[in-house]
């Protein structure tokens, strides 16, 4: 290892430490037998027990899961269509509509949806408004993933299908869909994760009704901090960790073997 690389490694380790120590602190203190997040007293599962008995929190978790499922379903559907359309047709407007919500600060989307729901639709803010809001900003992510997958594929496969007698629908069903499926699933998982985690947009579109998980956490942080927050944080981290690993495995798998079916080579 060259001398320069040694400094790079040092810098890298420091950055990784910076990234992980705070999270480690949260996890460790979730087992701490003390109200304060100050110093280690002893090991306990008290906070997890409190968590499981906290009805408000459990309700919030249930609501968040329902929202995440619904939003990820609709976002995946719309996002896949958008990704396909943008890749296949030379569209001007749709790409802008799809990708802008991804790039701009979430607060703008949250605020404008708040106005829209109350002013125009006269909709009482609640689960429905949150699901719509989450779908709106997740569509872009799914579209990006699906489109990237399509761009990496050899176009002549679709032509070959039609050449051999398949109609547009058959081509989609038998060739396109199976090949983009990993991207679609990755997009669904990503949407699910983004939805469960979302704070800003949920904050504005939630209204005063149902408890939602990130908002609950926020309230606890601002009002009465107890290590119960640490416990729920740790559990959430575990959940999203699993989701991300599954998603990245799928992407890697799909890209690796299946796309090397075209192109020439040597040997008989």
């Amino acid at each position, binding site marked *: 290892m060259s001398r320069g690389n040694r400094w790079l490694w040092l810098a890298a380790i420091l950055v990784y430490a910076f990234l992980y120590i705070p999270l480690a602190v949260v996890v460790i203190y979730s087992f701490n037998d003390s109200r304060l997040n100050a110093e280690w007293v002893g090991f306990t599962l008290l906070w997890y027990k409190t968590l499981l008995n906290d009805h408000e929190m459990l309700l919030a978790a249930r609501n968040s899961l329902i929202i995440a499922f619904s939003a990820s379903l609709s976002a995946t559907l719309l996002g896949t269509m958008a990704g396909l359309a943008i890749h296949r047709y030379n569209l001007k407007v749709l790409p802008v509509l799809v990708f802008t919500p991804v790039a701009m600060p979430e607060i703008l989307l949250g605020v404008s949806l708040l106005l829209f729901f109350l002013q125009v639709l006269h909709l009482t803010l609640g689960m429905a408004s949150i699901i719509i809001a989450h779908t709106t900003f997740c569509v872009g992510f799914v579209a990006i993933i699906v489109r990237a997958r399509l761009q990496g594929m*050899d176009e*002549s*496969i679709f*032509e*070959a*299908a*039609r*050449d*051999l*007698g*398949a*109609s547009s629908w*058959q081509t989609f069903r*038998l*060739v396109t869909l*199976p*090949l983009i499926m990993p991207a679609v699933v990755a997009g669904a998982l990503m949407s699910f994760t983004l939805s469960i985690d979302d704070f800003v947009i949920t904050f504005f579109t939630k209204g005063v009704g149902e408890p939602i998980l990130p908002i609950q956490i926020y309230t606890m942080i601002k009002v009465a901090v107890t290590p119960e927050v640490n416990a729920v944080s740790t559990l959430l981290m575990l959940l999203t960790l699993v989701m991300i690993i599954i998603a990245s495995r799928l992407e890697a798998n799909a890209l690796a*073997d*299946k*796309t*090397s*079916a*075209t*192109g*020439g*080579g*040597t*040997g*008989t």
Partner: protein
Amino acid sequence: MALLEIRNVTRRFGSYTAVDNVSISVDAGEFFTLLGPSGCGKTTLLRMIAGFDLPDSGEILLDGKNMVGTPPERRPVHTVFQNYALFPHMTVADNIAFPLRMAGKSAHEIKAKVAEALNNVRLSNFGGRFPHELSGGQKQRVAFARGLVNRPRLLLLDEPLGALDAKLREEMQIELINLQKEVGVTFVFVTHAQDEALALSHRIAVMNRGIVEQVDEPSKIYGFPCNRFVADFIGKISMMDAQVVEAAPLYLRLDVGELGEVTTAGKYGVQTGDRGVIAIRPEQVRISHPSDEPHFTNYFTGRVHDFLYIGDVTTYIVELANGARIEALLPNSAPGRATFFEVGDEVGISWRHDSGVFLQ
């Protein structure tokens, strides 16, 4: 009636004309090749036959019916793509079965036909493999099998051998000829490799910048190119400016400036006084020591300007008194010596009284 008739087809992209009023007819059972440099329009034409593009004007008739406007999936025409385009998520057997499925054949029939197709390309045990498990040559054979399995009226091949290395390419060329004979399907083959075209085809259409220069059998294309482009594109050729002195039915006498005169075979439509070039293939030119008796009637002396040794033959580039350079081919059949002549040697070159072609 020809199987495929292309009538006055034109295709423009903006101000650029890719295919310019092309008319070609292909007979049933033929191995027909579209040959030309990149950008000559051959691939565009092929795509129009397949249905992936529409001509701006003209007709494309298959068995007498105009196909223009019919989408690719409804044409009895299949394509073998340049990079094979095998479906990566399907097995070899499923790939080959695909057109049969699209045609609604019974499962029983599909199974039988797929087995037969695999047999034809000598991949009988590969049905369960996936494309990414195959070598280049194997993928190619699957692509052929897939295109032929339901005996289309026409099989289009878009430079399918382009990605293979030289040795494999030669083997596949022979396989392709045999396959076509066995199956009897009409092939329309696109390539820019003129040696490949000469080896495989019954007839060749040489294309350049959107127009068809010449359509003929390989030997005629090679031996009697109709213009300078075709002469130069196919094989190697040397050219010298010439003017017709006498135009008889069986021969032409040409004035080649300070070198004197040259005779060549007669050509229809040529008149005294016409200007052009005399074109000679290297294998028609004999090289010899200046002291030897001239082999043929058309004899000149010159100096060896350069040579290219390729193992079996050596090509000598001889510069004549008027500055013209003529290539002469000498087989290295005599053992021991690598070359007979060195750069700067005085040599004599000659060719038969009826060799070469006069082109205008």
